[in-house]
């Protein structure tokens, strides 16, 4: 209980610090709101990548270094489906861009799930007796995913050009225009946090997963086929990451740097929150997202343009120095 209290105090202090810096940087309440919204947006995207990573690590002791690649692949698939040209051209079949976006996101999720299933079922499963090689393997898969994307879609980054309803609408508050789409993604992220939390807490499969995080062998001894639970969780984690890439694409576009960038940020989140802790991942992603948004604000107009990209790594280094088990992690 004591360590939980220090964690809460730490979260509180970091939040106050970040919000304070954001307030100092902003000229008006509207500016502050924009920083806050963009931080939450970043945080939700991070959560989508980190959630699968954290649960998979807790359950299977595998850190999936390819999780960022699923995000990237999701972004590319969604982009490809939405726009004319490319591999799949749906503009004639589904003329309505809003509906096409829904299809694009679904396609990304399906591709992510399929690749996740293949990775766990056919590659990782043969390596459970050699854990260090699982890490190496997922690292190799991330390279292959990157090269495949380069091969299929070339290295030129795409920026989202197709307009659709919610992406283009704005609402006004405190004299500032806010993008409805960002709010929409933040809302969806919060809904997902709650949904996955409920799944873990209330459902039968959630109980099995939580028990598996505590003691894998015991669960198996109770007659539950843990391996198929592994496959399910891994596939779900990859699908969620691909979903994150798809909903991020209208803002971030599709580029080859998405994978490694989001991988490192997600790792920062997972370590900050405590490896394998779901609540920690949710809190950690909001904190890291806010930190990145505040750093972006601070870096504008200064010569230190690298600050926003270094921030998650700096956070990671700091956390590892001070509290390596993370905010909600149990020290092992």
């Amino acid at each position, binding site marked *: 209980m004591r360590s939980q209290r220090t964690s809460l105090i730490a979260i509180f202090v970091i939040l106050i610090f970040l919000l304070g810096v954001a307030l100092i940087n902003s000229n008006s309440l509207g500016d502050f709101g924009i920083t806050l919204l963009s931080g939450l947006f970043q945080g939700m995207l991070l959560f989508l990548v980190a959630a699968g990573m954290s649960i998979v690590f807790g359950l299977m002791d595998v850190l999936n270094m390819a999780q960022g690649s699923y995000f990237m692949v999701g972004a590319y698939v969604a982009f490809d489906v939405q726009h004319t040209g490319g591999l799949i051209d749906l503009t004639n079949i589904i003329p309505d861009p809003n509906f096409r976006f829904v299809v694009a996101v679904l396609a990304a999720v399906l591709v992510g799930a399929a690749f996740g299933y293949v990775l766990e079922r056919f590659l990782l499963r043969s390596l459970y007796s050699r854990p260090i090689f699982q890490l190496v393997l997922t690292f*190799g898969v991330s390279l292959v995913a990157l090269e495949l994307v380069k091969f299929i879609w070339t290295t030129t980054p795409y920026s989202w050009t197709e307009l659709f309803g919610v992406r283009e609408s704005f609402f006004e508050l405190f004299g500032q225009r806010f993008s409805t789409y960002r709010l929409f993604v933040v809302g969806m992220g919060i809904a997902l946090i709650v949904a996955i939390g409920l799944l873990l807490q209330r459902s039968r499969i959630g109980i099995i997963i939580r028990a598996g995080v505590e003691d894998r062998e015991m669960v198996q001894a109770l007659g539950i086929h843990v391996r198929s639970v592994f496959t399910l969780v891994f596939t779900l984690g990859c699908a969620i990451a691909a979903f994150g890439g798809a909903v991020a694409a209208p803002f971030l576009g599709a580029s080859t740097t998405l994978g490694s960038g989001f991988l490192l940020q997600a*790792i920062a989140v997972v*370590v900050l929150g405590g490896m394998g802790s779901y609540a920690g991942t949710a809190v950690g992603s909001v904190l890291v997202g806010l930190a990145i948004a505040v750093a972006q604000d601070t870096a504008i107009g200064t010569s230190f343009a690298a600050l926003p990209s*270094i921030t998650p790594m700096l956070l990671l280094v700091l956390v590892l120095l001070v509290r390596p088990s993370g905010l909600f992690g149990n020290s092992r």
Partner: protein
Amino acid sequence: MIQKQNSPIQRGWLRRNALPLLLFAFLVLFPFIVGAITDSSPYGVVRGDRMIMRGESVRWQSVLIEAYILIILAMSYNLLFGFTGVISFGHALFFGTSGYVLGLMLEYTAIDTTLALFVGAALGIVLCGVLALVIGFVTLRLKGVYFAIFTLAVAEMFYIFFSRWQLTRAEDGFAITELPAWLDPSQSRINFYYLSLAAVILTFVFIRRLVNSPSGAVFKAIRENEDRAQSMGYNTLNYKLLSIMFAGMLAGVAGLLQVILNKKVGPELLGVSYTVDPLLMTIIGGIGTFTGPVIGAGGLHFLDVFLRDAQINLGGVVIDIANIWALLLGVIFILAVIVFPFGIVGTWQRWQARRHRHPEKPLPDAAAGQD
């Protein structure tokens, strides 16, 4: 040892080491052999009062120097991953850091060029050692995965930092213009060739001595089962730190050579490819073996050189190998991890061991799992 006294292999040091000695002699004479075959001078072509690096012999020297650099990098990676069981995803960090230190020393300080070279090289290697110790000290008491993550994060941080830093000309990097003439690969490449060759051999001998020393035995014990090594009274943290420090410093040596060869310093030195390449080369060659990284690095480099201009014709679609080289490497990487975990040398050794059936000598189990 357990081998029989009348075994022909036991007769004399010269005979026992015939193959490495022959290889050594071949590599020493290599510039002259290629020169004689292709009728080109190993020193380059005289043009006015200076030498121009042109001709087959000089070109092949640089191909070999590139291979030597990769071999040193792979051997240093193997010391960490293969012999100590510690995995790093940021080996490029050490490679690039020493390169930048040397470059900054040569180009951005006013001291005499030769002095700057030695000070820069020494400083670069020492800094790599210190960096490795700091990273190790922070993460090594935790699970193995933390070290991998941490090296990846720090390498990425350095990469981003140096690709944005205006002083070192950001992403373009800067060229090395001041090098002592005796070392400059664009004036006297053969000198640099022999320096790199010496560096490879010294690294090989050093790692062999280290791994065969009592400390090396503890490294291997950590790889096999760290808890057991600890319960036998060894402070495993110190030994892991030692291994990481040497691996970082040796990777730094490779980085120095790379900077001198290309006469350019840029953020690509810190890029992920200098982490992936040694990892892949070590796995292909055979982790936890002495010759594995040498064969893996040399072999992959020569494949790269020979296949760079090749093409595949797939049902009318012509694909340049150069475009899909990284993809091919990645696929080989995955296949090697799953179906070929002992690498070329490891598989050979196991096959030999099985053929001779030494019951006292257990199979080299480099790929055993470690938490």
